[in-house]
């Protein structure tokens, strides 16, 4: 599984990355976590408000920090 966190280094993006990593640890799911800071890639995903979370090429959420529950559903579901 590949999890991409789209954002240009704002505090919310860091929060998102931390939350994702925490949930991965708790659930034991193996995933590659990548932080995407390049505008072109972010916009190619159709994302205009950051942070956004992309799992295996699917935009799950944009514009806010996802909660641990949401992330758990996405990575285990």
């Amino acid at each position: 599984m590949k999890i991409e966190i789209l954002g240009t280094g704002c505090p919310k993006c860091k929060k998102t990355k931390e939350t994702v990593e925490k949930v991965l640890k708790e659930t034991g799911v193996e995933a590659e976590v990548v932080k995407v800071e390049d505008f072109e890639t972010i916009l190619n995903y159709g994302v205009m408000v950051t942070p956004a979370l992309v799992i295996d090429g699917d935009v799950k959420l944009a514009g806010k920090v996802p909660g641990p529950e949401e992330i758990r559903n996405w990575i285990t579901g």
Partner: protein
Amino acid sequence: MTDIFYPFQWIADKLTYDVIGINPETHLAASVNFIIYDVLKIFFLLSVMIFAISYIRTYITPEKTRKVLGGKKGLRYHLMASLIGTVSPFCSCSSVPLFIGFVEAGVPLGVTFSFLITSPLVNEAAVAVLWATLGFKATAIYVVSGIVLGVFGGYLIGVLKLEKYVEEFVYKIKVGNAAVEPENLSVKERTGTAFEGVKEIVGKIWIYVVIGVSIGGIFHGYAPEGILAKYAGEGNLLAVPIAVILGVPLYSNVMGMIPIVESLIGKGLPIGTSLAFLMSVTAVSFPEMIILKKVLKNELIAVFVSIVALSIIFTGYLFNILL
């Protein structure tokens, strides 16, 4: 507008004079009373306002906005962009993707700027704190000025034909469609989002509010009456531009600045000068400029900052004369 906040004044009086037991005649009582009253009122209005706007916001997405504004010229669309800006969340880290997204959808540069100017200037948290401290009338003036400023500034940028000062790569980026916006949310989901909004914003700014109110409270209780009228009153024509220049580097602390400004007004700082100061705190900020630098050439940033700063100075003078 004072009446609906009467219960807060009553609680503040009770707490200050009876519970804590400070003699009402003292400076300390004036300060403590001011702090308690302001904190109650600000957090009440903040919660109500953020909830309402966050709820409305669940209907407005950047995707819809750029579709509505794409390829539209004319003052009407500047006004529309500016109005959408008032209810849109604005995090300076999203300004670049939003900017590119707008440009790619064919939104004219000027209309995009109407949005970019008003969006940070008129936001629900600043409006709530302003309303709680300076009252409804000053807040209404602030909001209307913020919208007029966005319409006018954006229009001017459109007239000046500055498209060549946008970095070339912006025109080459293709915005994908992957971010499917959730349609038809239930009332419960929208309410949930609105609650989250309140929690998130209040959680982020409460400390600035408390610090600001405390500094304001101390000033309110101890500074001599009318001290600012003497030095920064309407007679001093330099006061407005100085206030605007001072406001530029203070971006992140606007929520804390407002209660301080409230106490300054109480000591004779004219309302136009005060509003000009607060506008420059929110509208022009270094962090935002550094981020916009990635998509705009220096010439355009300079035009943008000058138009906004001059308009704010003009607004300040205008309200000093009118009010």
